[in-house]
């Protein structure tokens, strides 16, 4: 484990986390199959840091993200949050917004559910968040179908920020977007992190983006974290062959 940031406040603690799924039986005579996705994951996150989580597809990155937010059942282990309402930004901005609701409804729903703000206060907050992600407040009356991919991802980010979370989990937030938009969204996330003092768990398979954005990086393989350290440490002096391979294939080493 790296000892960076040890003098800072912890915001998330994951201790010895195991997650496995049982496959649904597709026919009456199938045996239930158990698939281990996460095999003992432990790490801490501290206030104000951006942590990159890198690994090939299928290694359990998204499952880890969902487990942290309580979106799937964990088999064993502990997840301790030191902040309220951690939020997530999903990979696909086209499907992660309900096509039949207006942006205003989408943004304000969490406030309706979990706060005591009145209509006017909710709208003001939605407008403020839209502005912070670089969108005009006239988008409030639109539906997701009328927006471009980049705009939708901005709405998703605004949506994630509505409850003033301290911890944000971004699950490959730019991989469905084209390159110029990717750069804009990365810049936006970096800006918001500074402005709001967020901690971001940034899941990606793009080592270059992680290098630009993150303070710390964790490399994941087969449901385990095999390397964890500052970006400089890991990129300059990778400890495992797998990380070396990743860096080589990304053309960094």
């Amino acid at each position, binding site marked *: 484990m790296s000892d960076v940031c040890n003098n800072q406040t912890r915001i998330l603690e994951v201790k010895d986390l195991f997650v496995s799924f049982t496959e649904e039986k597709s026919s009456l005579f199938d045996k239930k199959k158990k698939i281990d996705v996460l095999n003992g994951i432990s790490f801490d996150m501290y206030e104000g840091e951006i942590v990159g989580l890198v690994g090939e597809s299928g290694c359990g990155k998204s499952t880890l993200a969902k487990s942290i937010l309580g*979106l799937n059942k964990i088999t064993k282990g502990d997840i301790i949050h030191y902040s309220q309402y951690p939020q997530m930004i999903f990979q696909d901005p086209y499907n*992660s*917004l*309900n096509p*039949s609701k207006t942006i205003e409804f989408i943004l304000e*729903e*969490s406030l309706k559910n979990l706060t005591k703000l009145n209509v006017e206060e909710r709208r003001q907050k939605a407008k403020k968040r839209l502005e912070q992600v670089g969108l005009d407040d006239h988008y409030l009356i639109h*539906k997701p179908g009328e927006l471009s991919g980049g705009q939708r991802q901005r709405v998703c980010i605004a949506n994630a920020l509505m409850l003033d979370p301290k911890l944000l989990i971004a699950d490959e937030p730019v991989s469905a977007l084209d390159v110029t938009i990717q750069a804009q969204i990365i810049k936006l996330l970096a800006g918001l992190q500074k402005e709001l003092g967020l901690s971001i768990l940034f899941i990606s398979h793009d080592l270059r983006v992680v290098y630009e954005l993150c303070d710390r990086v964790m490399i994941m393989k087969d449901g385990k974290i095999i390397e964890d350290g500052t970006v400089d440490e890991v990129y300059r002096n990778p400890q495992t062959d797998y990380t070396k391979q990743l860096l080589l294939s990304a053309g960094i080493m």
Partner: protein
Amino acid sequence: MKILKKIVSSILVVLVVSTLVFVAFSVIPGDPAVAKLGTMATPEQLENLRQAMGLTDPLPVRYVHWVLGVLQGDFGTSYSYGIPVTDLIADKLPVTVTMAIISMFIMIVLAVVLAIYSAYHEHSLLGRAIGVINQVIMSIPPFFGGIIITLIFGLTFKLFSPGGYISYDINLGKFIGYMIWPAIAIALPKASMAYSLLLSGLIGEKKKDYVRTAYSRGNSSKAVFYRHILKNACIPVITFLGMAFADMIAGTLVIEQVFGIPGLGMILLTSIQNRDYPVVEAIIVCIAVLVIFSNLLVDILYKVVDPRTR
């Protein structure tokens, strides 16, 4: 604007249907005069009757004459009943329409309630059982379902008297009581189709990413289901409802025979046998208008509900 276009094209379709019907009945063999007077009538008698019926005019003249009449709400006089066709249909149309509407209502309620239950309890025993029963019901044609309903609810449990009928202008409540059973027979197979469609829609929507996002906004699973999933899953079903309504109107004509209800279907059959063209033409135009109107309604509803077609 698009809706205006639809309305205009709907009117054109009615026009084309009416023309085809008129031409078809003028071309197919059979003579209304012979049908009325019998084969023993003398040629003079037949000729006189044909003249009186206006059958001696050339086809285009008769067609224009008929269309002008229809535009004024006059479908001519029935050859065999001797009364204006409009009166004849105005008397029977409510039977068909009531039955179709009740049937539609039963179908929607059954499909929506059961599909929601099954989607909510996807892997429960009852949910699976509904799925199996659904497969069986889907394959029961209405006339056979009608016979079984008569046997079980009419003859065994005596909930209605088979073959009985009370007109809507005598006792509306009892009339509806008689309408419900044939309506169920028509509704069941359609309901099971709507159920399958809605269920697969619901399960498909449940897996979409926006559902996760909705959960992350602090919604309970109930709120996610009713506020987010249900409406989106209903959109493809609306198209089906339009087609189902058209089918149901056609279905009423058949099921009337099973339950012995004197509606449009009964007059349609006797009128075809008697070569009573004005009646047949009027009924077919009426049904065409109902079908086209229900499709138009679906198009409008679709525009209102679906965010993507706006």
